[in-house]
Structures are given as C-alpha cells and as structure tokens.
C-alpha cells in the first residue's frame, strides 16, 4: 500500500533489529499511525474524530472490565450491585459514571465522524470498503449499547429490553417464537440478563476487530481530505507522526474536557431518572424512551401509524408495527448502499452546491427533529413532525441523493491539495 515517498521504518538498536526480523510489530505501528503513513496536509478538525472514537472505545473497555469485576448479573442482585459499585467500591462511582457517559460520548464522536463522511463524500470510490466496515461498527455499537443499558436492571432497562426484543415479534409467523428464543423466556428475565451480559462483554472486542479492518482498509487508498481531491504528490502530504499525532493530541484534550465536565458535574444529565427505580415487570413507566442516541431511529419506528393493505377490502399486507420495524432497520441499512446511491464523482460537499443545500437545510434539521420527537410522548404534534422528518429521511437518501448527483453542476475543483492550501498552482508550490 501507500505512497512511494512514505518514510521507511529503520530499526536502530540491536533489539529493534532483532524484533523487526522476527515480528515486525513496531514496523506495522510505524506504517499505520507513525511517520510511515503519509496523510493529506489539509485535514481539518473533523478528521480528529476517528481517533477520538478509538479512544472512547478504549475508555469503555477499560472501565467496563473493572465494572464487570464488581457487577452481578442477576435479576435480584444487578440493581443493588450497581449501587454497591456507586457507594462501596473504591472510585466505583467514577468507573460507573465514566462508563455510562462514555457510551454517550462514544456515540457523539461517532455521529460526528459519520457526518464528516457524509459531507465530504468519504464513502466514495476508492473508500467504499472503509464505509461499509464503518456502518458495521455502528450497528455493533448500537447492539452493544442496548445490551449494556439493560444490565443495571432498572425500570428503563427492563422496559427497553421488552420493547426492543418486541420488534422481533412483528415478524409474521416466526416472530413470537423467535423472540422467546432470543430472550430465553416469555419476557426479559434471568436468562435474558445473563446472555446480554455475556454478549455485552464480547461485542466490544468484535468491534475492536472490525476497527482493525476499518483502519486496514483506510491505509489502502489513504485518508480522504476536505477538498476531496486525490493526493498528487509528496508535497500534498505530511507524515502522520508527528503532524497528526500532535493535532490529535490537542483534539483529545478538548474531547476529554467535555467528557470530564459531564461525567463529574452532570453525570445523570443524559440518562433517564426511571432507571434509578429497580425493574418491576408489573409496573410500566409512563413513557418508555431509549437512550438519546437511539431517539432518531425510535422516532422512525413510531412514525408508521397506518397498515399497508388493499384499500376498502380490509386486507392487510404489512401491519404498521412491522413496517415501522422494517423502516427503522432500513434507515440504517440504506447507509450500506450510499456509495452507489450518490454517483457524483465529486467527493467534497464544498464543491457541490445543490448537495450542500440538501445536507444543511434538509438532512441536518431532519435528524435534529427526529431526535427531538423520538423523546416525546405520542401527542399529535410530535407524531406529525416525526412523520414529516422520517419521510424526508428516506426521500433524502433514496431519491434526492441519486437525482442530485445526476443533475448537479459541481464547482471547479482545485488542481491539487497543495494548490488549495497555498493558493499557488502546483508547479510553483512544489518547488
């Protein structure tokens, strides 16, 4: 892979040479995130978020492993074991709050990372595989976060599990047996809690594995950049280390300041009070809502209110509930097809006047609206808004994007990254 001008790893000491001949791991790191990886010189702060997502995963794994040493996966003991961690374990309150808010911050940085990809066309050739692996990581994260939220066995844990596993019962014929198979019972109970704990511990390592593939795929074509113009020569790049390690270090500091501010001064801001009530299968909370990062998808689920059938005959082909479930999963799965829906050869949204309008004035407000409506009770005004926003979501990706790529006249692109940065044409800038 990589570019001919990439710096080569030269082991200095005897030990380094000995290791390099037997297991060239330092060489691998050098080429992956060291001076051996040439990166476009014009990356903006949006390119910090991949590294930040990696850091967030490490925070989750480290705090999670220690929490698991004190947690007790039992319907009678789970809630109290979390409170034992909060009260009696040394710095347990910190581990628990860091893990709880760490999940939210993981989603915040991953959402910004995805938006970066959407706006700058990072999913386009030759980077489709990176995007596909990224969407896979996102799906795995959602499953992991959901199962993790069940573990404290509070009211929202239990009823969230009830609602989410209920999706499977919408599948015709096999739905209910499938749901019982997944839960190990008729409702979330000991069997479900145990398997959720087991999977919640497993999945982060699966995610780490897919991240390795994600980064491997990234190193084949190299990083994209805000202009979307491909690298033309050495003058367009800088070595990852020290240039981007330094920039990522600064970005990491800013990220941790936000993370620490919320974790230590408003740790329950992003949570739901009902999850401090122990799970009670006999008492349904007034409003069952998922964690904030699932709200847009929850809004799409709830937006489907009419059955699909043959008019005036009463024949129903797809029930509203099943359609909501299909649409909710579809809203994420359609991202897999994005590289083939957006056929414009221009990557960066900067040079796509029409795309940019739909992005900032269509997609972003639509997602904000879905997130907001997802957390609201099903009053008429919220249902109406989420139906409009959900309809726009599908129209944007499945209809507008393919048409825009066909009819849009992109703005002139710079000849090279260096030209875009220095304002000088390529020949003089290279000199």
């Amino acid at each position, binding site marked *: 892979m990589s570019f001919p001008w990439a710096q080569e790893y030269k082991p200095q000491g005897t030990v380094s040479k000995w290791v390099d001949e037997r297991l060239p791991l330092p060489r691998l790191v050098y080429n992956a995130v060291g001076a051996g990886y040439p990166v476009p010189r014009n990356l903006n702060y949006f390119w910090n978020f991949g590294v930040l997502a990696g850091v967030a995963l490490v925070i989750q794994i480290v705090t999670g492993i220690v929490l698991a040493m004190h947690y007790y996966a039992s319907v009678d003991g789970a809630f109290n074991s979390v409170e034992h961690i*909060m009260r009696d374990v040394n710095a347990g309150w910190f581990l628990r709050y860091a893990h709880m808010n760490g999940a939210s911050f993981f989603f915040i940085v991953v959402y910004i990372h995805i938006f970066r990809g959407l706006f700058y066309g990072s999913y386009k050739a030759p980077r489709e595989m990176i995007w596909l692996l990224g969407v896979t990581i996102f799906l795995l994260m959602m499953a992991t976060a959901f199962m993790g939220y069940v573990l404290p066995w509070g009211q929202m844990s239990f009823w969230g599990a009830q609602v989410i596993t209920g999706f499977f019962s919408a599948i015709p014929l096999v739905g209910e047996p499938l749901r019982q198979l997944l839960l190990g019972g008729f409702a979330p109970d000991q069997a479900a809690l145990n398997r959720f704990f087991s999977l919640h511990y497993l999945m982060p390592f699966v995610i780490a594995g897919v991240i390795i593939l994600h980064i491997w795929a990234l190193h084949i074509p190299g990083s994209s950049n805000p202009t979307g113009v491909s690298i033309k020569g050495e003058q367009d790049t800088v070595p990852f280390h020290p240039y981007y390690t330094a920039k990522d270090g600064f970005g*990491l500091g800013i990220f941790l300041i936000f993370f620490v501010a919320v974790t230590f001064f408003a740790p329950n801001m992003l949570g739901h009070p009902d999850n401090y009530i122990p799970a009670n299968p006999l008492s349904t909370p007034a409003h069952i809502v998922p964690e904030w990062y699932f709200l847009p998808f929850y809004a799409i689920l709830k937006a*489907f209110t009419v059955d699909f059938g043959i008019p005036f005959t009463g024949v129903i082909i797809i029930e509203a509930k099943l359609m909501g479930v299909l649409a909710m999963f579809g809203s994420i799965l359609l991202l897999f097809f994005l590289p083939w829906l957006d056929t414009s050869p221009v990557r960066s949204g900067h040079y796509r006047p029409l795309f940019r309008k739909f992005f900032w004035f269509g997609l972003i407000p639509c997602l904000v609206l879905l997130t907001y409506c997802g957390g609201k009770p099903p009053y008429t005004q919220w249902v*109406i808004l989420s139906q409009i926003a959900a*309809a*726009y979501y599908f129209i944007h*990706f499945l209809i507008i994007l393919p048409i825009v790529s066909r009819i849009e006249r992109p703005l002139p692109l710079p000849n090279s990254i260096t030209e875009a940065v220095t304002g000088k044409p390529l020949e003089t800038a290279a000199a």
Partner: protein
Amino acid sequence: MVRLVAFLVGLFFSGMLLIGLGDTVIKAIQEPAQPTAEHEFHEMPLAVSFAHDGPLGKFDRGQLQRGLKVYSEVCAACHSLKLVAFRDFAALGYNEEQVKALAKAWKTEVPSINPETGEAASRPAIPADKIPSPFANEVAARAANNNALPPDLSLITKARGDGTAYVYSLLMGYRDQAGYKNAEGQELLKEFPEAATPAGLHFNPWFANLNIAMANPIAGDDQVTYDDGTKATKAQMARDVSAFLTWTAEPKMENRKSAGWAALGFLIIFTVLAWMSYKTIWADKKH
C-alpha cells in the same frame, strides 16, 4: 438497479409516512385530544436552592443531620432506606460512638435468628447494618398502607426529574382540592369534575396524577425537635429532608466534584501543551 430499487423503497416508505400523516391530521380533527386534569394541573418542581447545588457545592452537614432526624422520626415509619448503612452516617459528621448509638437506638430492629432455637428473631442494629426496613416485605407494607407501597427512598432524588426540588415540592404541595386553581386561574373541579380525589388518596398537584396515597407527612411546624436549636418550620423540615435524601442518593457527590476539578485542571494544562506542540510542529507547514 440499486438506484431503481432504492427509488421504489424510498417512495414506499415516504408514501406510507405521508398517508400516515394525513391519517394523523384527520384523526386529530375528528377526535381532538381532550385536555386532561393531569396535563393542565400537574405542577413542575418549585425553585429551591441548596448548599450542595452547583459544581462547587458541598453538603451542609448540619442540614443533613437535621434531615436524618426528620427521616428517622417521620419518613422511616413507612419508607425504607435499604441502600444506606449506619456506618455511612459518619459522612454526616457523626463520630464512631455516635454512629453506634444511632444504630442501637433505631426504632426498627434487624431481622435475625435466635442462636439457640433457630427461630426468627430480631436484634439491635450495629454500624455495619443497612437501615432496617419498617415492613418485613411488600405484602406487609401494602397491608399497612391501604394497598399502596411506600417506595424505598435511597435513590428517590435521582429517580425523579429534578429530584431534590421534587421531594421538597411534594412535601410542601398538599392542597385543599375544593376551590383549587392553577396559575392560569382555572379551577380544577369546575374544569374536571371527575378529577375529584378518591377516598383514601390525597390531593397534591406536584404528584404525577395529582392524587397521592401518602397523607401529608409534615402537617405543621415543630413536628420534630432539632438538636441544633433550628426552628422546625414545615419548610425547614421539607428542605432538610430533601437535602438528606440527596445525600442518600449520591453520597459520593463531594468526592465527584473535587475529583472533577482536579481532572479539569490537569486536562486544561495538557490541552494547552498539546496545542503549543501542535502549533510548533505545524509552524513550517501551511494547511
């Protein structure tokens, strides 16, 4: 092919959503949602401030001790505090002897067994015990409370939105329902005659459905006698017990805040250094 299928799927989903939208609008016009008493008359928690508020706030130890007194003499008759141990009271400023005395003098004893016969028995509490619950089990609690279950209070201020203010507002919120008006001047029983409080419940607009099973626990002044000479007004008792229940829900709050300032201080220095090295390294590169 991908784009054709995508187009049809997009058309189907958005079409069904727009039909649903029409359906929602028609239903809303045909059967407009009726205002409910809960919606119109439920009150948000009152604004009330405490020493422990804000990122620098610390618990007022005297207030927590007074709150414990209110809990032990009033609330503890019905409400358990299962997650708190007597030893935890050291954090309220009591010494070891005082904690031992508090445990020993607690009205409810700890369930145990008779070492000779193995029969059920009880013994006085020791500092290592959690606060003994007033009722042996849920059935006993419901039997004694008109079939209502008094919730455990250990986490109550975290289990309700704006919990500390909620507890304070609920305790101060008992009203005479006859002639009760909300801030807009609507009279409850005129607007919603069917919302009259059923027998055995008590009207309280700060409770979610306006009618709470708990009778007004702090009926008037001087229900408890404070050891520090503070005048035990109704509002004073409500504030003190709300502060105490904030502590039971979040006993490590002060550790959390002070650790937070240390972490922030460290990170600000780290970030400034990282920014300076970033600027130095990139000094010769236009980007």
